[in-house]
């Protein structure tokens, strides 16, 4: 039993972190002088594909690197820290689904030439045997060829054009492109229900890992600021009100990080307990991301409310991912119904 990364795992973390520091610094998300916000991450996919990141956890015979959910999870924490477009989730999960039934699609996704958007329900979803109907939000789907749908009951991959009645919307998280669309008896290219295999649990786990990254980065930003910003002649981090806020953020991030690691090891073993532990991870990690996002703004004082620092981006991204496949309320309702895993 060991819940710390191995040397090889740490090397992967360092590689991804180094790549993102060079290619996706947080400053890329600052609005320009006209207040316009672009979406700069589309250019990342081919580069990430080159490093094998998009097919990291896909089995080697499916064209991936054949690493486990543990390594995937570690990279997703880094994605969250760098606020990488949540479209990456479409790529990873899409590649997993496609690798089984549509190897050429999987190859295209892992190669970075084909983007995968995300779909999440706006209301009730009808579903029977791989055919889905309902109203959805599409996220980061504008230039995507495929769309990965996550509901609380299933995970499924579609061609983007299967979605109709599309209309663009401004997103609360202004960096993420958003639209409304619908599916009418749309047939999935591949899909799994929540009760079979680990595809659905993997989605919750990677969302949890991403959320953990958000929580950690919000903490890091707050601590950095609390060390240098002075009020009444002292760094604000020396005041208990701020210090204890940072401590609470550190606790929340640690809780999330531990459970995410734990769940990733369980899932890597393909264990029956995956669903339970991935849900637990999602609940504590999204909670941490929301709380740390909000507290991070508060620690920054007035500047936290501005677009001149990144503090606000974490809470917005946290809200966005909260709703993907069902918000905390939906997840908790599922979780309290689940059998105990001791």
């Amino acid at each position, binding site marked *: 039993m060991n819940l710390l990364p191995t040397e090889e795992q740490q090397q992967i973390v360092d590689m991804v972190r180094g790549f993102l520091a060079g290619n996706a610094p947080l400053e890329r998300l600052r609005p320009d002088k006209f*207040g316009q*916000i672009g979406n700069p991450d589309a250019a990342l996919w081919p580069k990430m594909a080159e490093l094998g990141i998009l097919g990291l956890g896909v089995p080697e015979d499916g064209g991936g690197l054949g690493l486990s959910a543990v390594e995937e999870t570690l990279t997703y924490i880094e994605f969250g820290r760098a606020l990488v477009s949540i479209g990456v989730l479409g790529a990873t999960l899409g590649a997993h689904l496609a690798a089984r039934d549509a190897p050429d699609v999987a190859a295209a996704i892992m190669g970075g030439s084909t983007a995968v958007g995300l779909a999440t329900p706006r209301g009730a979803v009808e579903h029977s045997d791989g055919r889905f109907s309902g109203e959805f939000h599409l996220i980061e789907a504008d230039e995507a060829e495929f769309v990965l749908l996550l509901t609380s009951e299933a995970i499924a991959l579609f061609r983007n054009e299967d979605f109709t009645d599309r209309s663009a919307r401004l997103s*609360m998280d*202004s960096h993420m492109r958003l639209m409304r669309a619908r599916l009418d008896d749309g047939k999935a290219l591949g899909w799994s229900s929540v009760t079979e295999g680990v595809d659905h649990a993997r989605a919750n786990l990677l969302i949890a890992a991403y959320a953990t990254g958000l929580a950690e980065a919000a903490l890091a930003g707050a601590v950095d600021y609390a060390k240098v910003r002075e*009020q*009444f002649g002292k760094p604000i981090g020396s005041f208990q009100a701020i210090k204890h806020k940072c401590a609470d953020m550190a606790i929340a991030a640690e809780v999330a990080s531990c459970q995410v690691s734990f769940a990733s090891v369980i899932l890597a073993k393909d264990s029956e307990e995956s669903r339970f532990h991935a849900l637990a991870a999602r609940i504590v990690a999204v909670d941490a991301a929301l709380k740390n996002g909000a507290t991070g703004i508060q620690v920054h004082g*007035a500047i936290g409310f501005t*677009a001149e620092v990144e503090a606000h981006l974490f*809470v917005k991204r946290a809200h966005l991912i909260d709703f993907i496949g069902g918000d905390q309320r939906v997840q908790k309702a599922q979780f309290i119904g689940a059998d105990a895993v001791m």
Partner: protein
Amino acid sequence: MNLDYTAEDELFRAEAREWLDANVPREVRPPDGPGMRDFDLGWQRKQFEGGWAGVSWPVEYGGRGLSLTHQLIWYEEYAKAGGPNAELLFVGCNHAAPTIMARGSDEQKSYHLPRILSGEVAWCQGFSEPNNGSDLGGLKCRAEIVGDELVVNGSKIWTSSAHLADWQELLVRTDPAAPKHKGISWVICDMQTPGIELRPILIMTAPGHHHFNQVFYTDVRISLSNVVGEVNDGWKVAMSTLGFERGTAGMLENIRYGAVVERLVDMARQRLGTSALENDDIGQRLAQLRAEVTAVRAMTYRIASRAAIAPPGSEASLARAFFSQLQQRIRRIALDIIGPDSIELPDDDPWIRPYLRTYSNTIAAGTSEIQRNIIGERVLGLPR
């Protein structure tokens, strides 16, 4: 204790209701820019012309000279009628005007008060500086006295709507040798004076919104006749304004929130069903919020009752600290009730942007931390 209203009060209430029903603007208030300025000033003019702009302002300054109870009745009817949150008017009506009334010269009064009341001009505040957000005593923006003018150099920050304002209430250091809280002056500054430059500060509510500004002053010349109160006495002048802000100025906003919660209750009933709501997580939290916002109204009444005897003191910080965090919890639950469409931010959005705005409420006018220090030290008498 009583909640009795005289027949005259009731008549006033009926008149207010009738006028508001007929006149409250139905169009959506633009969230920023000149459109917002036109909207807010236009609405103020309309209220002024109707005789409702200065219910409790003295008659000599164009008001109706009525009691705080009348003001409260007006606010209640305003909230019930869904009157707009015309924030651009706030500094002029609730900061600058009360300060000028209390400490201004006759000339200052006769020039500025009517213009504020009638919606001709908008004001902004110039208190905070880049390196002393919560610590007003440490302000550094310099003003040298040269002849009969002040020459201002320095910078102010977090100035709401400076880009839309005509005038600014400006705190400057006129005697750098004096102790921290002395040597400060409270000055009326014309935003068109040469030497003033603005740097817009983009805020988190949506791309392109700026609302805040940093203001730079380079050899800005302001006549000494624009100093309110005595030169070097600006700290005390400012404190009277801040006391007012922490006291009764927030009343309207507090009362408005009752209506916000009721809209949420309606939405939740529609989404979940009235009886399913009872023990539901959302229902239980909403019940708590509903009880708390009801209590905020009671707190407002108590503040008004106290204000009838003495100027608002630090007790009002209890209501303020409570309200700012309550507001955040109220706005937050909207997302849970709305559900997935919360990730959208439509132009006419009534819920998400106000939710994001709450992140500035716990910071503006002293962070929650500073508020709690004040409560601990000044209300409870705990040591510093």
